[in-house]
């Protein structure tokens, strides 16, 4: 048995026990609630602050902020209207009028990229939500104590994971046409399966541990066991996996749009800008540089964000978080720290 999992299980169990005891006996009800809400409010702040203190985390946060800001700005302003085409000045080189040049219809590349950022933001958010919900559902089913359900879901995951995202998207694109929903559903589905599969070994170990047995013996519901014991165990894996998925979703957008089954024509997106310039890379290689560069930088940032988040939100790694937790009375890793 791995000591990693065992230790974290111990801490989890003690945490819940302490919390329950404190609420019941030691502190007046109100006071307890005040401290926990305060902790809840302060935790994200601390996480962000500790992310900020890393160069990588800072880079990720800045890129995310710029992405968000550009998406918002593009709603009210872009240098040119998206519909402003100029057939006499197609594939123009960067100039004062068009900072990043123009595309094959003579439209301003910068404006399209700015507007594209909001489409991509939307796609990423929807995809991640889809993947997380679907993935957790599957994990819960796979580690379920109903062996028929568990067996069936394991096979279902194994079977479905063999269907590549692109194929699923190809089939989905038939009734839906090229659409954002194709990307969201295909990717959400695929990444959910991946999440489930990657998280399964850990979840299984946690779900079959002596501590869960104990919790079940003491009458905890299976939902409670899942949320209280299994979820914390797969949380780090999940965060990393979801952040990777967010990045992959941006990448998938460009791929699927290139294949003509992603973002529909006329809707700005980075993949759209990339795909339209691909055909002319021999003659106008510069145009293909920008969307590719943006996608790369954003995906890097999303990956770094996941790492930083994983580190900063993990009480084992983040001492500051431990201090706060201790002060607030909820002590996730304090035991381990003091023991060491």
């Amino acid at each position, binding site marked *: 048995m791995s000591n990693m999992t065992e230790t974290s299980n111990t801490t989890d169990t003690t945490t819940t026990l302490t919390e329950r005891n404190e609420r019941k006996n030691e502190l007046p009800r109100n006071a307890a609630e005040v401290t926990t809400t305060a902790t809840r409010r302060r935790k994200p702040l601390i996480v962000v602050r*500790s992310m900020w*203190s*890393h160069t990588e985390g800072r880079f990720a946060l800045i890129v995310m902020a710029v992405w968000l800001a550009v998406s918002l700005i593009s709603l009210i302003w872009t240098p040119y209207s998206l*519909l*402003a*085409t*100029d*057939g*006499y000045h*197609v*594939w123009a080189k960067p100039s004062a009028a068009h900072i990043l040049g123009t595309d*094959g*219809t*003579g*439209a301003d590349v910068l404006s399209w990229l700015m507007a594209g950022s909001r489409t991509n933001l939307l796609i990423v958010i929807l995809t991640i939500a889809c993947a997380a919900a679907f993935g957790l559902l599957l994990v819960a089913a796979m580690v379920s104590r109903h062996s028929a359900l568990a067996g069936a879901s394991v096979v279902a995951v194994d079977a479905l994971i063999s269907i590549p995202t692109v194929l699923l998207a190809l089939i989905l694109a*038939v009734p839906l*046409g*090229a659409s954002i929903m194709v990307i969201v559903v295909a990717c959400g589905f695929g990444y959910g399966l991946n999440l489930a599969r990657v998280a399964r070994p850990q979840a299984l170990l946690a779900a079959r541990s002596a501590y869960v047995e104990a919790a079940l013996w003491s009458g905890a519901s299976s939902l409670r066991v899942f949320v209280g014991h299994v979820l914390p165990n797969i949380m780090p894996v999940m965060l990393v996996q979801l952040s990777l998925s967010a990045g992959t979703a941006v990448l998938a957008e460009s791929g699927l749009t290139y294949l*003509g089954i992603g973002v*529909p*024509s*006329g809707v700005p997106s980075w993949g*759209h800008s990339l795909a*339209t310039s*691909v*055909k*002319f*890379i*021999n*003659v106008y290689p510069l145009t293909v540089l920008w969307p590719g560069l943006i996608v790369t930088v954003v995906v890097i940032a999303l990956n770094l964000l996941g790492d930083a988040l994983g*580190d*900063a939100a993990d009480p*084992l*790694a*983040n*001492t*500051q978080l431990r201090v706060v937790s201790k002060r607030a009375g909820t002590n996730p890793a304090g035991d*381990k*720290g003091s023991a*060491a």
Partner: protein
Amino acid sequence: MSEHTGAYDNTDATTTSASTDASLESRAKTPQRGPKRWLWVIIAAIVVIGIVIALAITGRKGSDTNTASTNNADSTVTIGLKLAPTNLDIRNTAGSAIDQILIGNVYEGLVARDENNQVVPAIAKSWEHSADGLTYTFHLNENMTFSNGDKLTAEDVAWSINQLIKNQYHDADSLNMVKSVAADDDANTVTITLNTANSNLLWTLTGRPGLVFDKDAKYDAKTEAIGSGPYTVAKFVANDSITLKANANYWGSHKAKTATIIVRYLADDNAAVNALKSGDVQVLAPITENLAEPFTADSAHYTVKAGDDTDKYVLAFNNAGEKTSDKRVRQAIRYAINHKELIASRGGSDKALGGPIPSLDPGYEDLTNLYPYDLDKAKALMAQAGYSEDKPLQLSLTYANIYGTELGDQLRSQLQKIGIDLKVNVVEFSTWLQDVYTNKDYDLSLVDHNESHDFYQWADPTYYYGYDNKDVQDLYAKAIAATSDEERDQLLAQAAKVVSEDAPADWLFNYRVTTAWVKGVNGFPVNLNQTLLPLYNVTYTKQ
């Protein structure tokens, strides 16, 4: 950074606090064999990659010398085309890619057409028709053979056409007026009798309906082809390539000048341009005009030429549709489209086209002045129809993805100025066929109608345009029944003008195919080469 160190402090703490129990020690040592195996795997992987790369580099040298030797011999020309045939079954499968590669090269028709779209002799060396235009007599060449050695006789000709009609092969409907086809082997003639006169008959016979097949040959028409042309199909890889070899049994005057012609289908424009640049192909047809710039600039090594063609980019309006049945809306759209700008953005060699008949077809007349670019007029018409920029008209444009997204974006931008909110759906061709062509469920549609002599589309109210004008139908019927070409051309021109005035569609431009080849290539057809590509004259001398 402090958090990180914290984490590792933790690890170290665990490490130091770990027990040194003897039994645990032995357990810890046992897995030593494992990691070594892993290292071996990694090393093996690296070695394999090393070998692969070494192989590849040596292999490349070999392949380079190979191509060099074949090029010096001038016995092979490699041609890059774009749209690939999925099979070779010219009697059953639609698609101009099959016509392009097989007609005139592998199969020959009773008659053929030249680069100006005029009918010229092929299997038949001459022909005449009766004054009423109901009987055509074709005199065939002597001593003709198929590539398998079989004799080509009048019997084969009549059989081929009769089979087409009997089995309703592709394009059989264009011979609806044929009453009978009879062969006279002794006189070496074929006689076609019609129910009604048809001025299009000869031209029709230059295409698939006139092709002559070997009555006695048995072969899989999807992957093989046996005809009487200067070339035979040596190898066919669906969607990828065709290798043509000179037909040793060829009977006629179009003897192949190059022994082997390899046709590669390069669907990706970039791949195509790179193939020409790197010498993998010697000719590229078509080349996207915007991509031809480097070749145009390098005139010492390349020739770039645009040829005339019958490709009409038709922006069809659903004349039976709810919103587009309003003539004012259709006219407004025609006034609002800036054709010059569209053509300029594509490189500038396409030709403006104001009506349904392109310059290489009978009945052509310049109609571009009927609907000049005029935003004010367009806006006024839209206002009459009850729309404005504040109260825009919602329309959708559905077209197949093979035409790229640019045209849709440009049209959306141009029509927005007159208060049309255009939603562009770029779909697969099969979806377009289903939704637009078959079910007629669309507002606007964009297709490159590359067929020649296709005016009948405007005289058929059941065609997907839904255009129904009795005058046009009458004029067309008269033109078809005409017995002289002049009469036919004049009637067609009249009909075309009526059609254009009615604005059932807008003709964005007449696409002219740009072809590029390296210096040393001769005899490659430039006109009409996307539907008609006789290759017998092509030669290549490496410079």
